[in-house]
């Protein structure tokens, strides 16, 4: 991967207002999640005296039905949502790249087998499997990360396989083969570096869908369990107070929307930046 591509990505990123906005939003949310303790409040401390207080100076996001500070809960919830998104992206990308490269590079029956396997898995509606697995396994954060990762690697594997197929016909790879390098060496030194842009774009889009899956799951009550908050589970409990306290439903959803939106925007900008000729928007 050469420097000009990074320069290209950078200029693409700063050329549009949306790219900058996405970066700012994600930085703010990540810092907020990391430094959530700076609000000086505990996300799970209940206080019946200030139950369902609308947003104001004391509680910027108001308080929920147990009198818990909603901003603090949103920040700690963001920790879980972002962690799940990031961790399951890492796992899914790892599996996807491994399977995609092996399938694309070695080809033959192994390739057919792996690709048919992916066809079968993707022809079962993924959200149903998601629900099922989260019932089978206990819904801890670790398990949710694993389940989401297991449902997301197929897409990346397909893209990586296609990219590997074109890369392995490149002359430098053919020379490396002719000079007798081992398959592992070729993949490691010549194929993987060429895959970096594809991996980055795929991973960015993956985070977006992982966060979306986690919040849907938590919203339905199958995700991270109370009293711990995530944006999805906060929306779940907000549903019951929609008439008295609509702000409870407003904030977590807005946070999910902005986060997912930012990752999607970034993913597209990266795609255009890495392949300027292919896909000018």
């Amino acid at each position, binding site marked *: 991967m050469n420097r000009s591509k990074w320069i290209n990505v950078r200029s693409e990123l700063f050329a549009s207002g949306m790219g900058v906005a996405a970066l700012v939003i994600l930085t703010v949310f990540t810092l907020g999640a990391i430094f959530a303790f700076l609000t000086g409040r505990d996300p799970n401390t209940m206080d019946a005296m200030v139950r369902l207080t609308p947003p104001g100076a004391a509680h910027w996001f108001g308080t929920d039905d147990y009198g818990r500070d909603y901003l603090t809960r949103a920040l700690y919830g963001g920790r879980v949502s972002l962690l799940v998104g990031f961790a399951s992206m890492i796992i899914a990308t790892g599996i996807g790249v491994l399977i995609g490269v092996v399938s694309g590079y070695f080809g033959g029956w192994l390739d057919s087998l792996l690709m048919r396997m992916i066809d079968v898995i993707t022809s079962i509606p993924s959200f149903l499997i998601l629900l099922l697995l989260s019932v089978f396994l206990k819904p801890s954060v670790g398990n949710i990360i694993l389940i989401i990762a297991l449902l997301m690697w197929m897409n990346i594997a397909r893209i990586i396989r296609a990219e590997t197929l074109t890369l392995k016909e490149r002359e430098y790879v053919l020379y490396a083969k002719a000079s007798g390098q081992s398959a592992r060496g070729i993949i490691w030194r010549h194929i993987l570096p060429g895959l970096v842009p594809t991996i980055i774009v795929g991973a960015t889009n993956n985070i977006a869908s992982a966060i979306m899956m986690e919040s849907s799951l938590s919203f339905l009550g199958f995700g991270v369990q109370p009293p711990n908050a995530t944006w999805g589970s906060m929306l779940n409990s907000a549903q019951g107070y929609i008439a008295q306290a609509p702000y409870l*439903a407003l904030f977590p959803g807005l946070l999910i929307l902005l986060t997912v939106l930012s990752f999607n925007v970034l993913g597209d900008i990266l795609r255009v930046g890495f392949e300027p000729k292919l896909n000018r928007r």
Partner: protein
Amino acid sequence: MRQLIVRRLLQTVPMLFFVSVVCFAMIKLAPGDPVLSFVTPNMHADDIERIRHNLGLDKPAYVQYFLWLKEIVQGDFGYSLVNHQPVLGQILDRLPATAGLMGSAIALAVLLAIPLGLIAGANRNRWADKLINLVAYIGISVPLFWLAILLMYLFAIKLHLLPSMGMRTIGVESAWDVVKHGILPCMVLAFGFLASYVRYIRSSTIGQLKEEYVQIQYAFGSKKSTILFRHVLKHVLLPVITLLGMSMGDLVAGAIVTETVFSWPGIGSLGMTAVKGMDYPLIMGITLFSSLMLILGNLIADILYSFVDPRIKLKG
């Protein structure tokens, strides 16, 4: 053409087979012993073994699988563990509600997406395109359950215009009542579909505008809007058919969350109840049924695509 259809059909059969294996395995691996749901406190151990034998659960797993498959092929999806009703009957009971909701959502999305996509494609990188692009971005990024809650708050609680729950008002038996209940979930689902449709139509509009016939129309002095809505539209419309085929997979399982939020009595909310109650035969039935729809949808999309655009050859 015929060869292609036959080959695609032949690919579908093993797919269905493996999907059924996966479904069966999932239920087999599920925690809990199905025999226990038949056990009463004063039963003898021999009785339990007899039930196990009668249910065929003492046979090896692959024998159980083929026995199960034989019943599935005959249309017998078994009985719910919770209410002991036939699974297939329950699914078919719920099908019209889901199909009606999904069908109207997809239709609404297509009707909106065609003009939006054409306008965006024709005004590439100008403000109209950017605005439509932003809406499409929000469409793929917004959690639909949140959108559902917001619309419910606005239209049902604040404005009192529409009902927020269910499909019918108790005691009212009019079609208009069902439509009124359907408007909000339909809007939510349509917004979800809209984004991907708009992007698809936009990019195919951009492609079409480069074609020779467009240049010729310009040379004849046709107005841009005439070219767009008379000539380009025709070419853009055909691939949309394939989008519909691809959406068929969502027909069943795509609405789990939305149906649950609005308590819409479709297959999605049936699936939720099944998962909550650990009702394995019902879960398996729904999974199998929706996978079948997904596979058939893709098959139809592929076949239609090759009809619409014979230049495209499907590879194995």
